[in-house]
């Protein structure tokens, strides 16, 4: 099991390094720019006041520049961060089982004296570890960087953001892992995962812009993924825990059962 876990991570090393490194550099850039941005924050806030509140909310920005946390929520964690995270997780999920079926290498794995559920979990845990390191490089790395640039900040902001990002990532990854055991072509996994998340994002925007359709927000991961609340107010709603943890557990159990039962013909 440990061998499969390590090989799964090792085979994706360039992808992992690119995403981890890319996010680290991006966060470094935002942090380095903050002292300059902070000096002209009043001008920024004046510009922001001219936009309709619902439009700003639709794109993940609900406040004004009041400090480092609100700056990062608006500039990065509210929208760019999940946009980077989703393809990262889709790539990990797609490679876990579907790519092995496409390449035929799953036969080599299935011919080993290892139970299918163990194969699934070795690959699943490898993805979770990759996600945790993504959180480290993209969120928690901000703490030492802020010290480096003498920025006033609350470390709690980033603990909450890492927790929220972790829950969001876990739910997306678990859904991706369910798709990777359901299908034998990566195209279908990416299309359905990406398509579902695009629809969810669209539902969130529709719910913000139309009072009649406000309840649609509950169908969107992006409603529960509220970076502003986590970073600025240090709040993660109870429903966010329920939805993300619930979906992750249901998808993981379903994926394990399906992979154990399914025919694997290459």
């Amino acid at each position, binding site marked *: 099991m440990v*061998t499969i876990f390590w*090989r799964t991570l090792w*085979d994706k090393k360039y992808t992992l390094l690119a995403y981890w490194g890319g996010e680290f550099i991006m966060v470094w850039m935002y942090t380095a720019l903050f002292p300059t941005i902070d000096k002209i924050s009043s001008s920024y806030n004046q510009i922001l006041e001219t936009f309709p509140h619902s439009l700003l909310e639709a794109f993940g920005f609900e406040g004004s520049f009041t400090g480092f946390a609100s700056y990062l929520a608006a500039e990065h964690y509210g929208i760019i961060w999940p946009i980077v995270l989703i393809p990262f997780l889709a790539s990990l999920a797609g490679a876990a089982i579907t790519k092995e079926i496409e*390449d*035929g*290498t*799953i*036969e*080599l794995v*299935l*011919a*080993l*004296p*290892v*139970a299918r559920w163990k194969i699934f979990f070795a690959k699943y845990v490898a993805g979770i570890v990759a996600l945790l390191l993504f959180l480290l490089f993209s969120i928690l790395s901000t703490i030492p960087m802020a010290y480096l640039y003498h920025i006033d900040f609350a470390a709690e902001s980033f603990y909450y953001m890492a927790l929220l990002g972790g829950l969001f990532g876990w739910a997306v990854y678990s859904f991706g892992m369910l798709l990777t055991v359901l299908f034998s072509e990566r195209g279908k996994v990416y299309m359905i995962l990406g398509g579902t998340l695009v629809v969810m994002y669209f539902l969130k925007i529709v719910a913000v812009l139309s009072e009649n359709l406000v309840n649609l927000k509950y169908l969107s991961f992006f409603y529960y993924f509220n970076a502003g609340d986590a970073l600025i107010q240090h709040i993660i709603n109870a429903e966010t825990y329920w939805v993300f943890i619930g979906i992750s557990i249901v998808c993981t159990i379903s994926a394990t059962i399906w992979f154990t*039962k399914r*025919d*694997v*013909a*290459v």
Partner: protein
Amino acid sequence: MDNLIKHFGSVKAVAGVSFTVQEGDIFGFLGPNGAGKTTTIRCLMDFIRPSAGKITLFGKDAQLESVSLKNDIGYLSSDTHLYNKWTGLEHIKYVQAFKGASPLLQPLIKRLNYDPTRRVKNLSTGNKQKLNFILALLGKPKLLILDEPTRGLDPILQNEVYLILQEFQQQGGTVFFSSHNMAEVEKICTRTAIIRSGKLVVVENITDLKGRNIHIGHVTFAEKVTLPELSIKNVKFVAEKNAGYSFTITGELKDFFKTIGRYTITDFDLNHASLEDVFLNYYKK
């Protein structure tokens, strides 16, 4: 294997296959493309699950106890499914992590003249097949399930593989392999099964199969003789361009000679069928 049935939707890939492989056999599994050989092998390996029927290996249910059984099974896939970015050595270490080190490894590498340091993507089809074969023999397998093991190998290496399989058999191992190559089946197999359209048509010892009373030949008549006039129960005639007929006789020759004796024969030959002819006879039925 007891009445194995496997459907893919409305397609019946395997329709009630039953046979037994004795320990110590080298068992050839033959059939044309799409006959159900690979589907049967995938059921044996528990990659796919039978729609009905039961497979028992070493007294254990092949589905329920597949994990423990795989400790005793070496498997070679019909296509060379390997990780392109890995070297041969990485593959070997990966499999050994689960099946344990094999004392056969170094002698095998030497006998097959294989370089394990090269990446799979840079290997020829034959070298990939060598690696596949080495991986199947890692650990201490009691049973080898090989789907076309000599595909892509040159004749010298094919002979080396036959020798290795025979040595494996002499040490008490059992080999179950599918093949299209009649000569290799004739050369190394003790028993064989022929599958056609998902159904087993024969399971026999090679010597018994070769001893079957099948003759093939050719006859040309001076006069015009039609196919209905040559209707004989155990003979199949096929008209040729030169007014002659090729034929396959299964069983007694008496009725055949009695019938063709009514006409004037200008050319005639008759031979015992080779093993290949026997197989082709089954394939075409």
